[in-house]
């Protein structure tokens, strides 16, 4: 249901995904324009993380397709893959490499011209410059989340998919992330944020959509305070 005007960065049509005979996603449509931030909320088991994995190309839908910058993701087009950044529940980092080595390796995978410099810049932006030579296993949960965010943003993706990005972040880090996301949105980033806590993303999101039982229950532009939206959220989720 969530759609945008103009040429979309991300265009998903008729996404269907089932586990056995139980439908996790039921013919989901979604488009995302440059500068747009879609907050996807919903109860546990609504299919939010599955949707994000399909949009990232990590999971194949039983039906439907995802196009990124006009390229079909299922065909593995490098242009489509290069345009996507994902923050998942896991850090995607190797414990046996330092943070700097981890990010430099990621930079190499994305073909960035000076991988070590790109990694250093990303760590500095995440406030982790002093921990560059530490292994991820030495970091606290919050610092690890910051490193994972730095990894997701490293190659300056056009479409950023975030699954609960504020988990374990302290207030200052959360504010820093919101500022960073606003700056990237102003540069034309498209953002999908999956969250259980709309308060954390309300200042960043331009649209909010609610997923219930694998279907869009409702969607609207973000306008006004969150408290005004919450009664509709409860109505849509049946809570």
């Amino acid at each position, binding site marked *: 249901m969530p759609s945008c005007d103009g040429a979309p960065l991300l265009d998903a049509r008729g996404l269907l995904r089932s586990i056995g005979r139980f439908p996790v996603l039921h013919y989901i449509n979604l488009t995302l324009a440059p500068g747009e931030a879609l907050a996807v909320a919903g109860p546990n088991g609504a299919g939010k993380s599955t949707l994000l994995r399909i949009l990232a190309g990590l999971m194949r839908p039983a039906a439907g397709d995802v196009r990124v910058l006009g390229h079909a993701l299922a065909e593995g087009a490098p242009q489509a*893959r290069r345009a996507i950044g994902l923050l998942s529940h896991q850090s*995607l980092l*190797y*414990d046996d490499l330092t943070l700097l080595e981890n990010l430099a390796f990621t930079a190499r*995978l994305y*073909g960035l011209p000076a991988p070590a410099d790109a990694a250093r810049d990303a760590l500095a932006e995440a406030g982790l410059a002093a921990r560059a030579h530490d292994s991820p296993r030495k970091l606290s949960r919050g610092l690890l989340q910051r490193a994972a965010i730095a990894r997701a943003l490293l190659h300056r993706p056009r479409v950023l998919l975030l699954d609960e990005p504020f988990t374990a972040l302290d207030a200052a880090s959360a504010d820093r992330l919101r500022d960073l996301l606003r700056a990237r949105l102003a540069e034309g980033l498209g953002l999908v944020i999956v969250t259980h806590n709309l308060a954390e993303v309300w200042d960043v999101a331009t649209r909010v959509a609610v997923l219930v039982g694998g279907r869009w229950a409702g969607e609207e532009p973000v306008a006004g305070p969150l408290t005004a939206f919450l009664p509709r959220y409860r109505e849509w989720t049946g809570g």
Partner: protein
Amino acid sequence: MAESLRLALAVAGKDIRAELRSRTALLSAVVFAALVLVVFNFARDPTALAATDLAPSVLWVTFALAAMVALNRAFTIEREHGALDGLLLAPLPRGALFAGKLLANLAFVGTVEAVTLPLFVLFFNVDLWRALPGLIGVTALATIGFVSVGTIFSAMAVRTRFAELMLPVLLLPFMVPPLIGAVQVTSRLLAGRPLSEMLGWLRLLALYDVVFVTLCTMTFSAVVDE
């Protein structure tokens, strides 16, 4: 092609760097190989069978079992923190990912074999000097074949609950042809037989390599992509 090679080298470099830091697979495989040689050395009856008759089989059983230990790590490091997702998200052709993993595994198994060989000479008192160039050649030929199959099975097994158990079950049947070929060539090398007696087996090993490296490269995407 150059881009794929660059990416494959990046993946291999990452694996080798991680292994040098942890030394988990290399140390376990080398210790395991030494233990297998010790067991064979003390279990055999030197009056019943000459060491040179038994040596080729012992050498290749040791290589194969030690390789299995090393190959187990190939994709288990990708399971930590969902790192495999990070590889699959990137604009990394699956052929390049397979090639990178294969190169790293060849480096690990090759290192284990290089460390095992002197131990083998020590325990079995075999004069390898004359046969060494040929032995290095046949080791390379056989290792490429079973490591390529081991790499794809390691990727398959890592998604199962009992990855460490699944890999030997899947891999051992596919190891039989290269192991038979390698044992046959090694016994002829140690006996100082002419090259013409080994050509058939060498052709079999080369064919196995070509077929399985090609097949594994082509099917790797189906294994790692959901």
